[in-house]
């Protein structure tokens, strides 16, 4: 965990409002755990004031290059999307705890379910799991074809199913529809996406084993401000976890969605 001004290597729009940003810096050598995130300052004024949490999507430890994918949403990501090659970005990271990589053994199958802007961290996860000899099946959900990204990249790691809400690509509907329609065999579920998606997964696969990556509005990003706290299932009412420092990845069922 360090703060560093990393250098922009490239920035491009790879789908509708979805940007791929590559940056280079010393601290990137530490980014070995998929599911961790970085906290970016997108301006050197106080507008916007807070940092923006963005997941690690891919890392080349050799060249110390980090790839992030983000959707241009509000003022912060709009400013981020204006960063050009050679400019710097104030990065704090890597933050949080990523997906455990040693729960499965070689030859077993990991099911990766990603929704929208929850897809990025699963890419680095897919690569790491595959390197460890696991089989990867990915189910990726988007609004429509123009919003979809990284399909081919995931295809390089294993089988891929796509769903779009409007049916313009893959199965019409949600990732849960893909899981209903296709008979996918897997040993462990890894998922990241909007809370409604995670809830739907939980409902559809009540006995699911695996890990969810969660999102919450953040202040500090490092565990100091209690902004991102969640209740723990089956704990005392005052029991909690912090998404930023205890998560964002938790065993399925641990955290009250």
């Amino acid at each position, binding site marked *: 965990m360090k703060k560093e001004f990393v250098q922009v290597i490239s920035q491009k729009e790879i789908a509708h409002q979805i940007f791929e940003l590559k940056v280079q810096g010393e601290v990137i050598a530490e980014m070995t755990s998929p599911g961790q995130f970085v906290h970016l*300052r997108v301006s050197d004024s106080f507008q916007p004031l807070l940092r923006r949490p963005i997941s690690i999507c891919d890392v080349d430890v050799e060249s110390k290059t980090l790839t992030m994918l983000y959707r241009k949403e509000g003022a912060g990501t709009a400013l981020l999307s204006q960063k050009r090659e050679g400019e710097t970005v104030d990065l704090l990271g890597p933050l949080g705890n990523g997906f455990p990589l040693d729960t499965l053994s070689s030859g077993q199958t990991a099911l990766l379910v990603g929704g929208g802007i929850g897809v990025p961290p699963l890419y680095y996860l897919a690569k790491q799991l595959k390197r460890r000899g696991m089989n990867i099946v990915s189910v990726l959900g988007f609004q429509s074809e123009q919003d979809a990204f990284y399909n081919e990249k995931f295809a390089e790691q294993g089988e891929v199913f796509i769903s779009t809400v409007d049916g313009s690509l893959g199965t019409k509907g949600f990732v849960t529809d893909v899981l209903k329609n296709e008979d996918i065999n897997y040993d462990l579920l890894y998922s990241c996406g909007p809370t409604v998606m995670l809830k739907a997964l939980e409902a559809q696969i009540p006995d699911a084993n695996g890990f969810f990556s969660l999102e919450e509005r953040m*202040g500090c990003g490092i565990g100091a401000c209690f902004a991102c706290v969640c209740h723990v299932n089956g704990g005392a009412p005052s029991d909690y976890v912090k998404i930023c420092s205890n998560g964002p990845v938790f065993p399925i069922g641990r955290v009250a969605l």
Partner: protein
Amino acid sequence: MKKLSVSLPGLEMKNPIMPASGCFGFGKEYAEFYDLSVLGAAAIKAATREPRFGNPTPRVAETHSGMLNAIGLQNPGVDQIMENELPHLQSYDLPIVANIAGSTEEDYCEVARKISLHPQVSVLELNISCPNVKEGGIQFGTDAATAAALTKKVKAVSAKPVYVKLSPNVSNITEMALAVEEAGADGLSMINTLLGMRIDLKTRKPVIANKTGGLSGPAIKPVAIRMIHEVSQAVSIPIIGMGGVSSAEDVIEFMLAGASAVAIGTANFVDPYICPEIISQLPELLEKMNVNHITELIGGSWKECGTPSLSR
């Protein structure tokens, strides 16, 4: 670095800089970034009698040059804090300001009595922005008599000096300050957050689950400066100033307004190194301003005898 030392009741500080309560947890996280011993002091997250989970999320929202928070005083309760959180601070040369909160006088007194005995705690900071349940939800922080009565009770049970943290959401901040001074407060902390709200155009509901939140950050700095300027001329106890501080220049501005020490809250989220960075920039800035010791600046904007600046 002698130029920077300040001495307040119960607080011998190497420099006037401390992280503000609620923005620094119990120090563990920031200890991974720097040696906490460089700080003048540190205010820890509010302690309550019982563990509190706090408010539902979202708990924070961004605003122009500021942020809203409604954490809801989440904390593990005074006993756990004393047992699990304070001991690790022993390894630093760091006076601790223990922020305490409650809904009844009894709550406050119980927490004050206990935590003031902890060897790691140098002073108490009474967070009076909580609603007084007994008086039907009026805030301790907006009624002078209620605040004074609470101060007196807490002073009676506290083994350490007591600073009262004033809320800016009042018609007359000086009246509040004088009331708690009269009641025995050893110092003041000001300001706490301004009450604020943001509404999401998509959901048409407040962004923060608790609806309202406390506004902090650079946006509120002018409000803090004017209140400190006013109160410091009326009271004779020292003030820990805060509200939007994010540079060494801001620290000087707060001290010229009348603060004797300065707390930094929201800016820690923007830059986790902000406290040590400001501390390291202060000596050069004082030199540029022809100031021998930082205490010369206190109240410089209104004191007749303020050393005039030689350089321009």
